[in-house]
């Protein structure tokens, strides 16, 4: 039982000696006192209060969840964007300066299904380089946040990958696997998985690289055209039908010459493998017209009917 201290009415003497106060007293004294709401009304309000408070609690919870999701998604997107800008731009920049050729180029689509006379011994172009291996050292990331720690961990793995070579690639792969375990669903997860593809390619593990690449949402990655090209070339090993889709997308785009050359040649080779000799011939002719001294030009000319 608690005693609630009542508010006492004003009883601090009269001020009626002042004309203003006297008039105010008369005026305000004539204002009727409000009546309390009837019990029935207050009971109805009490009922509404319970309903509203329950609904309010649910709404508040929903709002909190929604705000959390929005903040999380926005934060992840921003981090991803920032990281793709940071790592992606460095890759592009350094790749152009110091290309690193993949140790084990992808095999050509098998031409045995084609008639002997028309099946050219053309090999698919190998990926020119493993982009991550050409990464320049990036500035030391901030380590005061989880994202900073994640970036530092990925940077450590990438620095090993940059060194190139099978041995470094193996160590980089281990580091990347550890990183993905340490930061599952991290903001830089995509970057780590892309680097993993690079490491697998350097190790010659084409099937693993292909599996990893197939599971990647490459549309969300800064290097999407490059990755699409690599994926197409890997698929061309034994699935030219799906590889054609990627090659087609690439051929229809404005790409750097080195990629455009590979995409056009890859499409021609896959068409040939699938039996579309006319289509293949058109692509090869187009290739020779656009890239007369391209890396595959000699091979194509050697296979051209005399």
């Amino acid at each position, binding site marked *: *039982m*608690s*005693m*609630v*201290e*009542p*508010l*006492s*009415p*004003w*009883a*601090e003497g009269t001020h009626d000696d002042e*004309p*203003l*106060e006297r*008039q*105010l*007293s*008369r*005026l*305000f004294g*004539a*204002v*009727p*006192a*409000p*009546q*309390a*709401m*009837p019990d029935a*009304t*207050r009971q*109805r*309000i*009490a009922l*509404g*209060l319970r309903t*509203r*408070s329950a609904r*309010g609690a649910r709404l508040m919870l929903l709002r909190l969840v929604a705000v959390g999701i929005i903040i999380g998604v926005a934060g992840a997107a921003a981090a991803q964007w920032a990281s793709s800008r940071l790592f992606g731009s460095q890759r592009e920049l350094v790749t152009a300066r110091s290309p690193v050729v993949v140790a084990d180029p992808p095999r050509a689509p098998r031409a045995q299904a084609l008639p002997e006379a028309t099946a050219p011994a053309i090999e698919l172009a190998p990926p020119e380089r493993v982009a991550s291996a050409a990464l320049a050292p990036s500035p030391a990331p901030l380590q005061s946040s989880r994202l900073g720690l994640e970036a530092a961990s990925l940077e450590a793995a990438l620095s090993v990958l940059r060194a190139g070579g099978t041995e470094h690639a193996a160590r980089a792969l281990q580091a990347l696997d550890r990183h993905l375990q340490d930061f599952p669903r991290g903001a830089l997860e995509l970057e780590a998985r892309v680097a993993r593809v690079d490491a697998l390619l350097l190790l010659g593990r084409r099937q693993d690289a292909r599996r990893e690449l197939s599971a990647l949402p490459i549309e969300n990655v800064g290097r999407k055209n490059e990755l699409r090209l690599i994926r197409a070339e890997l698929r061309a090993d034994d699935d030219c039908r799906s590889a054609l889709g990627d090659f087609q997308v690439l051929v229809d785009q404005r790409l750097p010459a080195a990629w455009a050359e590979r995409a056009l040649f890859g499409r021609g080779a896959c068409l040939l493998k699938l039996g579309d000799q006319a289509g293949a011939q058109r692509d090869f002719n187009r290739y020779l017209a656009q890239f007369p001294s391209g890396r595959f030009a000699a091979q194509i000319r050697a296979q051209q009917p005399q």
Partner: protein
Amino acid sequence: MDQLGATVSLQATLDGSPVLELDAIYREHSAAVSKWVRRMWGPGGVSGSVDAEDLLQEVFLVVQRRLGSFRSEAALTTWLYGITVFVVNGRRKKERWRRVLWRRAEPELQLEHDRALPAVQQDFERAEASRLVYSVLNELSDRDRTLMILFELERLPGAEVAAVLGISEPNVWVGLTRARARFKKVFERRYGDFETSEGADHVHG
């Protein structure tokens, strides 16, 4: 005015510790709060969408949210009064913005429906006094208006006004002096000379 507050049981026990319960507070204080709401809001001056029932419910929703922060050294009634002032003034601000946004004219003051103020219906002069006073109060700032209502209409002591508004007592007196002067000024602009005006006198006929 009614004596505010009462010696009531507002506590339940949770793990041996007394806790305030919203249901009990509502049961014991909703009648008084409904009067305060009407007093603070006045007989009209708002859009028809706002009524005392809405405000009463809003007051207790705030009470529910803030129960955890209630400090027992303050009188519960003072705390409730403070929340009522906060809710009513907040709603008045919203209504003002709504009027600006929708270019609504200030509605004519209207008395509440019969059930709310039966006495007013029966007494034209008292109804007129209410209309007159609130027409002037509604032109004052929220602070002046609240001070005048709490002190002049509710007749709360200065110390209690200070507690409700969370200001010092000297500030109450200073504020009240200014509010009265402004009230007089507005009154005279609307109805003529305050001290000798028929506006004040005609209330008592």
